[in-house]
């Protein structure tokens, strides 16, 4: 029952780049990203679709890459933590996490940031409570969330400011 079915051809935009890929149908998106593309910033912290460490964006919305087949991303755009900012130029949300000490061991951090960016981009104006509820799909064991909430609120402001700046240019 586990004989390898033939691989499927996939066309996925990964972090802005057009990728032509092949994977068997039973490949989870998170495994395609981690094993085939070497994008190991997306982590696996559970097997029940609860912890959110594998959160990526699919067409701009946060989804759990452990509950999505790679083939379901065919024809769509996937953004991972590696695609939102770099060491040279952190995304405002990444910068806010650093500034607020919103990470310790770092394992949940990529998923947390991907969830936070979606929350800011698609959520209502955020309050402390709204951020806490909006992060319901992400578990952190280190920080007690205090600084994460602070960072998301700060990141929200920074993202708005960055948008304004861009709008002005």
């Amino acid at each position: 029952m586990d004989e390898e079915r033939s691989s499927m051809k996939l066309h996925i935009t990964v972090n802005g780049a057009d990728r032509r890929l092949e994977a068997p149908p039973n490949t989870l998106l998170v495994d395609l990203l981690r094993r085939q593309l070497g994008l190991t910033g997306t982590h696996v912290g559970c097997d029940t679709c609860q912890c959110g460490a594998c959160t990526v964006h699919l067409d701009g919305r946060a989804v759990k890459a452990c509950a999505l087949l790679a083939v379901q991303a065919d024809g769509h755009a996937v953004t991972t933590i590696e695609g939102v900012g770099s060491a040279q130029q952190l995304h405002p949300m990444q910068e806010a996490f650093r500034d607020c000490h919103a990470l310790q061991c770092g394992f949940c951090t990529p998923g947390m940031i991907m969830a936070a960016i979606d929350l800011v981009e698609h959520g209502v104006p955020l309050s402390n409570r709204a951020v806490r509820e909006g992060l319901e799909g992400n578990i952190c064991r280190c920080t007690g969330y205090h600084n994460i909430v602070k960072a998301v609120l700060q990141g929200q402001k920074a993202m708005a400011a960055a948008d304004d700046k861009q709008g002005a240019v």
Partner: protein
Amino acid sequence: MHSFDYHKPSTLAEAAALHQGAEDAAYLSGGQTLLPTMNQRLAAPSDLIDLAGIGELAGIATASGQVCIGACTRHAEVAASDAVRGALPTLASLAGQIGDPQVRNRGAIGGSLANSDPAADYPAAVLALNAVIHTDRREIAGDDYFLGLFETALEPGEIITRIDFAVPARAAYQKFPNPASRFAVAGVLVADYSGDVRVGVTGAGPCAFRALAFEAALAESLDPRALEGADIEGVIFNSDLHASAEYRAHLVRVMAQRAVAQLL
């Protein structure tokens, strides 16, 4: 995960034919339950039929007292839809309480109802909002849909296409979430159709059910206090680590009272 053949049909007929021709097929909608289950190797369908390519399963429409949701509509879309928020805000609010944001961005109403998890949120809406479930074969009245634990009126291979909810005068949904999984330990939707009150309960029994005793009491007097003496009969309440049957029964009453208070 075990191997399977993947199909992405573009019509319902094609999907049904694929299902019929396969040894042990499963439809893939949002996949938020099915894929983790397969990943844990607790299910191994021979074929997965992805419904995402079937155009007619998408979309939200409102018409003459109805809100119609295509089966592949994601929870987040229902929660954010201006049409739903305008016509039936309780349904949008309920959709916004399912799972967590990432799950809502993937999970779809048709898949949720086909799976019929005893602790899912939508079933309460199907019953209380007098929904009609449209399939590729027929229409099923919401009241006839839930049959037992994970058991629905759907026949093998039957595909939910659309769910039509009847817009009440007012409604409210109150949920007591499982602190670990965020599924409903008890979820109660109370809808007032100008005197005719419907109460849908999820999370509490083997499948969603209407609390007829509550409905009768509320028809007499639409007041939270009216529920104090009303007892749900004929339901074996679920009992698990998170809530005994007795506590669940209590929570159902409290959630119902809160829903009534909210809609007043």
